[in-house]
């Protein structure tokens, strides 16, 4: 099941690159149902666009790469969703979510979070038990990513499909309209990027190659366990 992690990495990378590419064709964001260059944006990104009709303040127009970006974005989205289905079923079936990701009884207090944050700031060495199991901050972050951010990014993405919305209008109406859905899709993607940055930083601090070996082979070297 570590395979699902790496499939997600692959799909998410493709989604991020192509998603960024698609944003460049209209780097303006709105709130509500409609939005176009004749309307005031909620905010716009200070980058040149890949379309000459977007007033960006730049004289430069980026090349249009939306064709393959859109094809790949949706193909990668399928990989992500199908992987998530397999992982989700496996996670509930084996009790992985309950056992390894839900904060333990003793951890469900602000004190536990404060302690863990303090330990991180001191860069306190791990004890043998901790090195084998996720701490409360990890558990919370992983649960948020798996059960909040990924479902949200898929929902807000699907809400951008006019055909999907014809079958399930609530998907977009509950988000406050099409342009709101697009803006939310953008922010949820950033939240996932933020997680990715912290996640990779933590892995690097924990010893990048050792963690990599563990995540690829499933075995943590014994020397790592004793700090």
């Amino acid at each position: 099941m570590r395979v699902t992690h790496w499939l997600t990495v692959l799909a998410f990378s493709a989604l991020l690159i192509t998603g960024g590419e698609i944003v460049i064709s209209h780097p303006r964001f709105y709130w509500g149902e409609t939005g176009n260059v004749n309307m005031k944006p909620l905010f716009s990104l200070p980058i040149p666009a890949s379309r000459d009709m977007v007033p960006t303040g730049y004289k430069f127009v980026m090349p249009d790469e939306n064709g393959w970006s859109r094809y790949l974005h949706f193909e990668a989205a399928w990989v992500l969703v199908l992987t998530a289905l397999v992982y989700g079923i496996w996670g509930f079936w084996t009790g992985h979510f309950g056992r390894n990701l839900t904060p333990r009884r003793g951890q469900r207090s602000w004190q536990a979070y404060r302690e863990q944050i303090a330990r991180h700031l001191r860069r306190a060495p791990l004890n043998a038990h901790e090195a084998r199991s996720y701490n409360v901050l990890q558990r919370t972050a992983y649960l948020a990513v798996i059960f909040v951010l990924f479902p949200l990014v898929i929902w807000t993405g699907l809400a951008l499909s006019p055909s999907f919305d014809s079958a399930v209008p609530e998907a977009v109406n509950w988000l406050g309209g099409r342009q709101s859905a697009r803006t939310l899709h953008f922010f949820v993607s950033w939240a996932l990027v933020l997680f990715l940055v912290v996640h990779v930083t933590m892995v690097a601090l924990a010893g990048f190659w050792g963690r990599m070996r563990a995540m690829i082979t499933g075995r943590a070297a014994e020397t790592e366990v004793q700090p």
Partner: protein
Amino acid sequence: MSGITRRKLIWTGLAATAGAAGLTAADRIARRYGLIPPDHGGIYGPGETLTYAAQRLLTRHSLAREFPRSMISKAPFANETAPPSEEFKRYEAAGFADWRLTVDGMVAHPLSLSVADLHSMPYRSQITEVVCEEGWSYIAEWIGTPLHEVLREAAILPQARYVVYFSIQQGVWESIDMADALHPQTYVTWGMNDGDLPVKFGGPLRLRVPRQLGYKSLKYITRLTATDSMKHFGKGLGSASPEAGYAWYAGI
């Protein structure tokens, strides 16, 4: 040892056979129900086929969202396509009186319709959103003759699977499957917001396909062709869009 190997071999063989049979069955069902898009080849083919098949199963008869009159965009954005040709300007100068929409291919009664002919047919209006693949959108009221009325008048043959439509601009053409062609909200549009359809927005005639992105709602259409296969149109990918790298199915 050899027992385990043999057992493993048998199971692997069975699984492979079941997998292959499953795929073959899925392929046959998909073809039978028209779930494979014309641009199903290449590295993006699997994703595109999954999207099209899933959306067709989910959305065959669903209606695009319609909005109250109060939500009509005050300043709709007309994405300027290529500048009108001399030929187009001549039509425009004559108030599009000579503009013709020909309907041919797999139909029993080929037609050549003027804008006035379309006005005299049953027509409807809808307040729907135009959604561009770039991300922007606007809402307008669209008035037109439902495409299914035009196809009925031409007596489209039951074996037709796609309707191909051509703009007056060279090399600009699209196609849709019958689910969209016969869909009640797919119009040969000639009016917008209580007036004639402005040239900027595709006048005199624009095919409006509200469940798909804006690039399927082709401006300045002059010809409709019913066909059972996209093989002999362009490169056989379904429309000019896949030839330029964009997906044929634009419901997402």
